[in-house]
Each structure stands twice: as structure tokens, then as C-alpha cells.
């Protein structure tokens, strides 16, 4: 068991490398936003260490900059980060029912788009140690990246930031494309979701990216569940 945990931890560390690099680049730009909102490097570091949420933190810095109050902050977080509620529900079905409270509290701490994606992509049940391996790289990448973003501002060339920012999307593709190849339902779902997302982004420019993700995820997943419910043998989740 111990050996198995160790192997899963190392696998998490391995898969965590692109996440860490992508996070370092993205959080660096987030640090610039934090500095504009008047946060010190330590305050920005602390925010990223505790939150691990790109859109959420960006929105939070906007609230701080405008000094809109704690209630406005709470409501903003609820809306921008609502998609994590869905991800957490899905993850609750991916871990063994026997998983204790502590692993659940740790996994829950770092439910991000990327870590959620990587966690759902492992075959069978999720071993919490895989998550720990991912977190061991992602969390320092994210929080230190934010810190250096505040300290060093625009020192990283725009070319490098531009290239690194795409790594996270490459990761998403590596997660959704292989199952789409095996299962035509998923391939159709991926194509429909991408098309709907483009349509929503161009037709409804006022809709924030966070809201777009929530609305489309609920609508399309519900439609797919109604049209194409899992059979009893589809117990892959």
C-alpha cells in the first residue's frame, strides 16, 4: 500500500510539471494585477497560497481595488468560483467512499481546473497521493509566481508569457481527446461544447468567462445526461 502511494505521488509530481510551469507564467501576470490593486508581494503570495484560483483572484483584486466591501467580495467569489462546486461533486464520485476526512480536506483545498482535469484522467479510483503529488508542484508554482509577478512586474518577455499561457490548454486537450477517440459520445460532446463556447463568447460578450463556463457546463452536461444516460456497466466515474 505504502509503495503504491509512493508510486502515485511520483506520478502526480511528474504530471505536475506542466501544471507548475503554466501556473508560474499565469500567476506571474496575476501578480501584476495584484500590484495594481495595491497589494504587497506578501499579501499577493498569501492570496495565491490560500486561493489557487486565477479568475477568482483576478476578480478579487478588482473588488479590493474598488474597495467594495467584504459582502461584495463573498458574492463575487461565489459566482466566479461556482464551477468548483461542480468539480468537487464530480471528484466526490472519483474517490473511494472509504477515503477519510483529512484527504478530502486536502484534495478540496486544491480543486482547480487543471488539477481537477488531471485527477479525473487517471484510470479507476483516484488515489489521494496522486493529488498530493500534483499539489506539491502546483501550489508553490502558483503562489511564488504571484509573488514574483508583484516584485518583478514586466520582466518576463511577452513572448515567453504568451507561449507558457497555452500550456494549460494543451493539458486540457491531453485529458479530453483520448477518451473522445475511444467514445463517440464524448467526441460529439467535446465538439458541441467547443462550438457552443465560441458562439457564447462572440454572441454574448457581456457574459464573463466564469459565468460562461458554469452556464454551459450545467446546460450541456444536463442535456447529455438526458439524451444519453450512462448504462449500468458505464461505471468508469
Amino acid at each position, binding site marked *: 500500500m505504502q509503495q503504491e502511494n509512493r508510486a502515485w505521488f511520483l506520478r502526480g509530481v*511528474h504530471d505536475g510539471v506542466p501544471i507548475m*510551469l503554466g501556473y508560474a507564467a499565469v500567476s506571474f501576470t496575476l501578480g501584476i494585477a495584484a500590484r495594481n490593486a495595491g497589494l504587497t508581494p506578501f499579501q499577493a503570495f498569501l*492570496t495565491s497560497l*490560500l486561493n489557487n484560483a486565477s479568475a477568482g483572484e483576478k476578480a478579487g483584486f478588482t473588488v479590493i481595488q474598488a*474597495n467594495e466591501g*467584504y459582502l461584495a*467580495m*463573498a458574492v463575487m*467569489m461565489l459566482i466566479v*468560483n*461556482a464551477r*468548483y*462546486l*461542480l*468539480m*468537487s461533486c464530480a*471528484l*466526490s*464520485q472519483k474517490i473511494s*467512499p472509504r477515503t477519510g*476526512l483529512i484527504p478530502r480536506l486536502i484534495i*478540496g*483545498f486544491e*480543486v482547480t481546473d487543471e488539477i*481537477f*482535469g488531471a485527477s479525473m*484522467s487517471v484510470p479507476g479510483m483516484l488515489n489521494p497521493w496522486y493529488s498530493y503529488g500534483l499539489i506539491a508542484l502546483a501550489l508553490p508554482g502558483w503562489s511564488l509566481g504571484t509573488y514574483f509577478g508583484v516584485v518583478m512586474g514586466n520582466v518576463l518577455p*511577452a*513572448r*515567453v508569457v*504568451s*507561449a*507558457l*499561457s*497555452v*500550456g*494549460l*490548454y*494543451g493539458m*486540457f*486537450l*491531453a*485529458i*479530453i481527446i*483520448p*477518451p*473522445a*477517440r475511444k467514445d463517440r459520445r464524448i467526441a460529439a*460532446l*467535446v465538439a458541441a461544447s467547443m462550438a457552443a463556447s465560441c458562439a457564447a463568447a462572440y454572441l454574448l460578450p457581456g457574459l464573463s468567462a466564469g459565468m*460562461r*463556463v458554469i452556464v454551459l457546463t450545467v446546460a*450541456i*452536461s444536463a442535456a*447529455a*445526461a*438526458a439524451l444519453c*444516460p*450512462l448504462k449500468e456497466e458505464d461505471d468508469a*466515474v
Partner: protein
Amino acid sequence: MQYNIYGYIFVMFAVTYLIRVLPLTLIRRPIRNRFIRSFLYYVPYVTLSVMVLPDIVQATSAPLAGLLALASGVALAWSGKSLFTVAVASCAVVFITELIVL
């Protein structure tokens, strides 16, 4: 009134953590309902797809670089390359494309 920055940070943390941790700690059994099971099964694919497009095209300085990264990412993932390879290759495609077109 001037609110405290640490107060703001605490509110951010508290709300975000509760959103993330409540389902994981409260849902402790496999869900039997077929619709909800199907719904949760499809959620990751839809969420990740929605986040890839059009964002990948908007994240790069040159939209063409994002498109090429998307195409090469799909091709590499389709042929079974690892998460790490696909992610790094996407970055490389963008870097090289932008060297040429910008």
C-alpha cells in the same frame, strides 16, 4: 470606509474553500441516481472543452499561434502522447509561430 486587505483575503479564502470542500466532504457515497451520475460523468469533458475554446486563441499574442497550438494539441493527444508532451509541444508551437509571424 477602508476595508482591511487581510480581511478581504480571508473572505476570498473562506468562500472559495467552502465551495470546493463541501461536496467532497458531504457526498461520501456513490450516487445511485442515473441522471445525476450521467451529469457528473459528462461535467469534466464539457467544462474543459468550454475552457479551451475560444480562450486558447485569445491567450496568445497572435491568434494564429493559438489555433496551431489547438490543432497540434488535438493531433498529439489523439495519437496518445502524454499530458506533459502535449502541454510542452503546445507552448513550443506558440513560441515558434510567434517568432515567425510577429
